[in-house]
């Protein structure tokens, strides 16, 4: 209870007792809840050694979990690179002075932001083969879907970032005789990109989570390989789901802390506006909450 205690007084003797009582009561309730969950698992025999033992064997990891994780990360990485390019093109397009460029860019971005990713993936995976008359590999269905959705989200973020650069910057650019494209390329984008770096990394978390949708269309990523297939062999679906969840949480927590570190770093170097003293310790940025 340090600087963040603006919402309540420094505890006096009575408040200290009350807080201790509350701590004990909620601690006991929490332990009771955990014990109840433990009992529920126990009753259904979910703690039985054969269900958990596969995770101690190297083959479980090399045959199921690691290939799944690799597929998840590679889809996320490819989609990230593509959606960065997509986001950049459409952000600049939407900011264009020509209506025939800005209006279509705006329509595309708004459309793909509003359509559920799963619907998009279903269309790409089940619908497009009817038109192209050749099967769509699940990997590309996942990557294209992720690119269209996350690229559109990033386009909006970039647009906000470019607009947040002080107007004096672009005016100075024009004053020394730069063209519009030069101002965008050499003045606005570099400054916006630096400020946008934390947002980009946070979006990567959304991307990693969204690759799990690939499971629904049969892409063998972590959820399909590490939970579904693995559990089909060992009959331990609850255990496998918990292990997979832990892996997702570790990967995403690492990315989140990277985003936080980048944000602190940019703020320290005075490239982003300083925040005034917050009421409570500031939380990490609220991602839009993809899937």
């Amino acid at each position, binding site marked *: 209870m340090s600087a963040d205690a603006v919402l*309540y007084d420094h505890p006096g003797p009575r408040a200290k007792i009350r807080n201790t009582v509350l*701590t004990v009561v909620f601690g006991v309730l929490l332990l009771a809840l955990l014990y109840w969950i433990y009992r529920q698992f126990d009753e259904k025999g979910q703690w039985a050694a054969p269900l958990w033992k596969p995770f101690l064997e190297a083959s479980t990891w090399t045959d199921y979990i690691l290939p799944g994780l690799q597929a998840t990360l590679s889809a996320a990485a490819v989609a990230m690179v593509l959606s960065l390019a997509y986001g950049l093109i459409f952000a600049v397009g939407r900011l264009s002075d020509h209506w025939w460029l800005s209006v279509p860019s705006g329509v595309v971005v708004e459309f793909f932001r509003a359509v559920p990713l799963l619907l998009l993936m279903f269309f790409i995976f089940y*619908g497009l083969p009817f038109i192209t008359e050749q099967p769509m590999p699940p990997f590309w269905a996942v990557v294209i879907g992720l690119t269209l959705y996350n690229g559109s989200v990033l386009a909006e973020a970039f647009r906000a970032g470019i607009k947040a650069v002080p107007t004096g910057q672009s005016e100075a650019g024009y004053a020394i005789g730069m063209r519009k494209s030069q101002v965008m390329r050499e003045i606005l984008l570099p400054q916006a990109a630096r400020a946008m770096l934390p947002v980009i990394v946070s979006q990567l978390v959304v991307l990693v989570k969204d690759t799990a949708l690939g499971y629904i269309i049969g892409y063998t990523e972590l959820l399909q390989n590490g939970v579904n297939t693995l559990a089909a062999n060992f009959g331990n679906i609850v255990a496998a*789901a918990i292990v997979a969840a832990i892996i997702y949480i570790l990967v995403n927590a690492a990315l989140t802390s990277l985003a936080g570190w980048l944000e602190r770093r940019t703020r320290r170097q005075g490239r982003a506006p300083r925040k005034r003293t917050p*009421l*409570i310790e500031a939380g990490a940025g609220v991602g839009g909450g993809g899937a």
Partner: protein
Amino acid sequence: MDVFSDPLNVDVYVTGFLWILRLTAAGAFFALVLGVVLAGMRVSPVPVLRGFGAAWVNIFRNTPLTLIVFFCYFGLYSTLGLSIVDDIDMNNFWLGVIGLAVYTAAFVCEAIRSGINTIPAGQAEAARAVGMSFLQTLTIIVLPQAGRAVIAPLGSIFIALCKNATIVGTIGLMESSNAMKELINANGDAVIPIFLVFAGTFAVVLIPTGYGFGWLANRLAVKR
């Protein structure tokens, strides 16, 4: 648009979106309640509550919703035998609502927590100065002001929730994405119109909703 002249297909479409509507409404209600409680916990003077709130947010915000919904069905229902109602569709619906609410509550909690940060410290200090307890400060002074500040982020969270409701299709509910899949597989010659109708419905509803939340946020903002 021949596909949608068949009343059976229209029925599939309408049922799909009715499920989405119900999932969104129920999910938003429970996520909001849970999220506000979690946010209260995260700023409370009791360390156990703060830890619980933080653990919840870190666990559920970083797990894919697909995995959560998957776990609700195969873990809670199939393995642990949690059955809420007898009707299979309704049971899947409530399992889906649990997954959506538990996941979205983590985002609501973080949005409200950052909303609390937009309030000048003087407000909470004044509340304490007139002798308010933590709960009074939170519910009478801080949360009403924070609520007005978080309308825009909450709006985008609920829009995301509406889109995420399609994921409940994984556990066999015939919501809109499954409905679209069925229609596409049955009518391979009309793939594009089918997609445009389904995606268009989401776009036509959600894009104005997004602007609506923006307008509301602007209107209700505390001018400082």
